[in-house]
């Protein structure tokens, strides 16, 4: 059978015809055929729709499943140049890992005055910061498995400016010569630190659990469930405990340093992660009929 392809923006004009497809061909087969005709649009750059206003068709669906028959028209959308998730993750985390220590190590060039001895909390904060981003990079390299291979190249610049900008913003104030240590002294510092460390371990445990959930080499999705590791028991309450832990970790950091910019970062991160979590939560519920009822998206019993 053959399919006509039109551009989503100009649905009347057929740009090319794909031949040699069968009813059990998948959308991925369609994309491969299209990439042969138009090499500029490699597979991950393509998106196809059955109706220009409907959702994109997923790669693993067959034409028969989608009720697409001979001589139907599919609408093509160019997603723009793509870049691998791993590369974006690496650069967005590598920035903060370098920027923060600059403020900590070379205050004389930034504030004009050397700082003979940093406050204990400032040293702890630098340690937490470096630990967090180092952990993120290691996770990107060795743990994460991505269900979508690529993202638009613009995300590299958008995400990096977010992370690099906040890194400089927070580092500037925490390492400032006139930094004021927390009001409640050591009690506050160590409470914040304990929350941070606990939640980093939790976040790491969830990333490992999510990675083990997916057999390597596949993009098959399963319902995430608590494992033997107690940190993962939060899966019993929320769909995205990695985000819950991450937000709580940054709350701990903000409490420890008593620095408003860190709290801004926590809040911005929370809003973004809440949006992602709600989206993922809805997807899980749509995808799995037997998805556990009582789960929330990111905050137990609330959101």
């Amino acid at each position: 059978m053959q399919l006509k392809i039109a551009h989503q923006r100009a649905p009347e004009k057929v740009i090319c015809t794909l031949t040699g497809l069968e009813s059990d061909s998948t959308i991925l087969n369609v994309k491969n055929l299209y990439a042969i005709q138009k090499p500029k649009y490699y597979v991950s750059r393509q998106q196809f729709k059955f109706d220009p206003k409907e959702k994109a068709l997923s790669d693993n669906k067959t034409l028969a499943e989608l009720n697409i028959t001979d001589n139907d028209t599919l609408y093509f959308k160019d997603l723009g140049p793509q870049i691998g998730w791993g590369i974006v993750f690496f650069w967005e985390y590598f920035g903060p890992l370098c920027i923060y220590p600059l403020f900590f190590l070379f205050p004389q060039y930034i504030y004009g005055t050397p700082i003979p001895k940093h406050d204990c909390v400032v040293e702890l904060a630098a340690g937490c910061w470096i630990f967090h981003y180092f952990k993120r990079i290691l996770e990107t390299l060795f743990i994460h498995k991505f269900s979508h291979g690529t993202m638009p190249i613009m995300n590299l610049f958008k995400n990096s400016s977010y992370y690099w900008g906040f890194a400089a913003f927070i580092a500037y104030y925490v390492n400032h010569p006139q930094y004021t240590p927390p009001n409640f002294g050591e009690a506050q510092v160590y409470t914040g630190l304990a929350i941070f460390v606990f939640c980093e371990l939790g976040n790491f445990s969830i990333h490992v659990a999510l990675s083990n959930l997916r057999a390597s080499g596949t993009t098959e999705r399963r319902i995430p469930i608590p494992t033997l590791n107690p940190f993962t028991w939060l899966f019993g309450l929320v769909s995205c405990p990695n985000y819950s832990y991450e937000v709580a970790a940054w709350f701990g950091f903000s409490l420890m340093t008593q620095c408003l910019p860190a709290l801004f970062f926590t809040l911005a991160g929370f809003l973004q992660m809440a949006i992602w979590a709600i989206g993922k939560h809805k997807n899980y519920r749509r995808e799995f009929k037997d998805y556990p009822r009582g789960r929330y998206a990111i905050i137990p019993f609330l959101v």
Partner: protein
Amino acid sequence: MARRPDESHLKEASIPDLYLILYNCLQTVGWIAILFNTCLYLAMYQGDWKSFPGVYESTATSLNFFQTLAVLEVVHIMLGFVKSNAFLTFMQILSRIIIIWLILVPVPVTSVGPLLHIIAWSITEIIRYFYYAWSRAESPPYALLWLRYTTFIVLYPIGVLGEIISIFSALPTIKEHSLTSLQMPNILNWSFDSYTFLVLILIGYIPGFPQLYMHMIKQRRKYLSPEKVKTQ
């Protein structure tokens, strides 16, 4: 193929619907009051046409209240009551809140700026909130839809021009008295300088204005295209 934007019968009203109708009606009334106060100011105005002292003061309480209340709209989106882009909405509301609380409240601006943007804001908001309130109950009449997606063509640039004039005319006073600023050291471990912040906001208008304007043009095309109009 084309789906109707809205079925034009009365929908079953839910609690969020009722709440939103109430909220949007309240905002409509609020902005009518603001426009009314401003018109009253103009009617009584005796000065020359170069400076307009006291235009903001003539409607300060209502303007501060209703514009600040609009923060709820971001909450509505996040709660899923309204389908829209939370970030764009937040930026739009934030820029106005900055103008009110960092400029109009602390600085007595006498330029034409406040007059321009208060009139542009209030006409836009009356139409917008009235449209939202109506569309929560049933499909609004075409005239209202048309106004909603047409008046911005003129009012949006007038509003932005007014905002820029307001910021520019307030900057010298803000710098001189270092108004609304916070210096290190303090227990928040943060510093804030209203002057620098406002200069950054001014620069932000350069990419921000065309982006939002094009966004509105696209919306206009989407809602007022001939194909959609036929189904009304």
